[in-house]
């Protein structure tokens, strides 16, 4: 069974910082305890891995990107330029396309409403311009030819009455 005292020793401080007496206590114990031995081995591997990772980080920072400074300065200038633009301009940049398309649609609708004739007016104008009724068109009657003058109408009426007498 694992000894919590040994495990606490392993986890309390880095292995490299353990005192000689602590290390001796651990070594003596793990000789007779397989589970604590496995924990000790794992702690050693863990310490080694963390050290390797730290060494690699130190190596990487030594070979930093030479263009890093340029990149940071460019980002800073961009950020500053963004901050200098007035709030309305920033709003316009964000929503300009949408607002412009909405304005164009509204203007187009207004033009269509006020400038173009409505369908009723168009019908009236069409009726006024074309002297044919629907019947004349359907019956194909030549209205101009059949048009009677007032005199002809009166004489026709009176002739009919006279004949009736």
């Amino acid at each position: 069974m694992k000894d919590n005292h040994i495990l606490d020793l392993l986890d309390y401080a880095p292995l490299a910082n353990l005192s000689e007496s602590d290390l001796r206590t651990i070594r003596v114990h793990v000789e007779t305890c397989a589970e604590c031995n496995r924990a000790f081995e794992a702690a050693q591997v863990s310490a080694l891995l963390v050290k390797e990772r730290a060494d690699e980080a130190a190596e990487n920072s030594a070979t930093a990107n030479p263009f890093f400074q340029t990149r940071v300065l460019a980002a800073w200038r961009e950020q500053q330029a963004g901050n200098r633009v007035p709030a309305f301009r920033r709003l316009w940049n964000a929503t300009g396309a949408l607002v412009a398309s909405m304005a164009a649609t509204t203007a187009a609708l207004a033009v269509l409403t006020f400038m173009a004739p409505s369908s009723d007016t168009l019908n009236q104008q069409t009726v006024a311009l074309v002297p044919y009724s629907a019947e004349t068109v359907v019956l194909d009657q030549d209205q101009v030819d059949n048009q009677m003058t007032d005199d002809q109408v009166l004489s026709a009426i009176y002739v009919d009455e006279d004949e009736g007498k």
Partner: protein
Amino acid sequence: MAYRFFRERSLAEEAAQETFLKAFAQLKSFEGRGSMEGWLTRIATNTCLNILRAARRRPELVTADLSEDESDWLEKKASEAPGEQRPDVEQQVIAADLAERLLQTLPPEDRLALTMIDGEGASVNEVAQLTGWSESKVKVRAFRARKKAREALERLLGGTGK
């Protein structure tokens, strides 16, 4: 500083850039009481921690996640006596890969405490000053990180046939 947190160069540079941008923007708030380096390092630490917090943490590392090289490395290291390691670039890369994957399973704060104290040999007090945490918090974070890392490796070593 950023390389402590991020193994990938682009991520480390992104964190460093954000750090400098924050520092430029808050330059007026630097009162000159401490060193400029310390002030910058603290901004960098907070920036990196925030980036790590926003990223999804990896679930527990299991044997099936290990590559063949990593399994071999673990088996070899577990059977090797301490101090027997020979410098080998390929082995170092495998170890750094495995370490990164192991660290990614830890909470960012635990990871920071472990890498600084165990990896770089920083004192509890130095980490406390860098992060603004209390010393007892640093100790607890480091203890928890060591325990988690050790337990994960115990499972992995058990799974690799050791």
